[in-house]
């Protein structure tokens, strides 16, 4: 059997504190297959972001390991891109939109023409036109997060990690961005690991939903989502299976929060 693209194995993370050691993440194990869309949900404050940063190689872990292609991740590896929750801080305001998207490409011996082309293609993929020379702060929140996604795409990643990327935009923009994400996911043939606290969003987007328990975060259950694709904001959410899956995840999340 082929090993999965991303293997998260017995991950744990604890912090020293004045009242002894705080266990943030405890023995989390799951995998993400090539081309899969996996959501991670859990009660707020359960350590989802810490988990994602650990998987990305941006935070140290106290136990277990994360492997991409069987290689243990220590530092952010090639083939993995991250979209952060707070676009206003992860996009660099001193750079234009095009320079933000092109930043990870430069200084690596890629020809200039190829860089320009990749920037254009990435912005096109997220539906942004005529904003390349603007600065991020001249755009709306939803458009800024599109730029952040474009920067992820520009790196041509095998796997895109997303940390509550749509948490700070309004509901309508959020629905648009969800559908946009599903489009680029299938266009680019990527794998996505998507952390959210929104249960509807987790179910709507994913092939599988990893439900975490309240702090310390453990894997409560992994739920397969067999809703047909392409998904549709109204049609998919009107299906009885959607309601059932949603209720199930809801129960698990609320149950462990209590």
């Amino acid at each position: 059997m082929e090993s999965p693209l991303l293997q998260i194995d017995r991950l744990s993370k604890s912090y020293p504190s004045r009242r002894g050691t705080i266990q943030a993440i405890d023995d989390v194990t799951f995998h993400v297959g090539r081309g899969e869309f996996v959501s991670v949900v859990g009660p707020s404050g359960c350590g989802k972001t810490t988990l994602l940063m650990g998987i990305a190689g941006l935070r140290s872990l106290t136990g277990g390991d994360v492997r991409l292609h069987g290689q243990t991740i220590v530092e952010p590896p090639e083939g993995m891109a991250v979209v952060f929750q707070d676009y206003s801080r992860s996009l660099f305001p001193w750079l234009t939109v095009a320079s933000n998207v092109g930043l990870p490409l430069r200084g690596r011996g890629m020809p200039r023409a190829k860089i320009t082309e990749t920037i254009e293609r990435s912005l096109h993929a997220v539906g942004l036109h005529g904003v390349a020379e603007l600065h991020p702060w001249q755009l709306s929140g939803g458009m800024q997060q599109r730029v952040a996604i474009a920067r992820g795409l520009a790196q041509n990643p095998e796997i895109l990690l997303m940390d509550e990327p749509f948490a700070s935009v309004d509901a309508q923009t959020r629905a648009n961005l969800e559908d946009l994400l599903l489009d680029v996911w299938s266009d680019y043939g990527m794998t996505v690991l998507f952390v959210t606290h929104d249960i509807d969003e987790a179910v709507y987007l994913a092939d599988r939903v990893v439900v975490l328990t309240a702090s310390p975060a453990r894997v409560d259950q992994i739920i397969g989502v067999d809703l047909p694709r392409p998904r549709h904001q109204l049609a998919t959410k009107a299906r009885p299976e959607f309601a059932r899956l949603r209720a199930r995840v809801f129960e698990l999340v609320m149950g462990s929060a209590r």
Partner: protein
Amino acid sequence: MSAAPVGVARGWLSGLGRGARETLSYVWLLGVLLLFWQWRATASPSPFVPPVSDALQTLRSEWFSGSASQLFLSEIFRDNAFASLARATQGWLVAAMVGVSLGVVLGVWRAAWEFANPVVRFGMSVPSTVLLPIAVVLFGITSSMNVFLIAFGSMWVVLVNTMDGVRNIDETAMLTARSLRLSRFRAFSRVLVPAASPHIVTGLRVSIGIALILMVVSELFAATEGIGYYIVYNQRTFQYRKVWGAVFLLAFLGVALNGLFALFETWTLRWHRARGRGE
């Protein structure tokens, strides 16, 4: 009764452009003070404090009486002001480069900071002018001595501000830089320095003032040309108009340099201001 002249004055003021009115409202106090000085110095003449008009006239004839092809700069200007400005510029550039580089290193590298902290505090606390006698011993009465003193004295504020700026960079920005796998050089030049630039620029602005002070002071005591030297020379020969003329020259140079720097600041930090407005 008094409404009419006020109205006329208002009408006249609004007839000026907006920029002119702003300038006027900005400098009127300076104008009043200079007029007062003029009046006092004319009413009771003193050899030490000539009227402003005399000082300004001397400033013109001494420093700005060159031909048009020389941009009206006199030989005295070319001999002395150029020498002074060259020292200030060299010293300030060294201070800026060393201050920013060391500041970034100490901002990023905690252990280095703890190690260097006492040295930085000590260096900052020593009044740079006090090092003048030592600098003279080390370098002799040379331009290198002035440059050294200017560089040394104006470096600290750049260093400390840069360090603060780097320390206060948002964590998400640093995580982003790491996740993009930027090379060390690109992380430095595209993320670290721009993110800290509001602080760095503040340090640089303050350091210009310090550099100018050290330029003059070091020339007052040890130089064979320069504006400071010119002032001391004329003071010793009791030519107080020339002394005052040079004082005004220094004020104008200071204003001009600060203006130039303000332009640079507006240009480099336009994202910072614009974002402040946008959010």
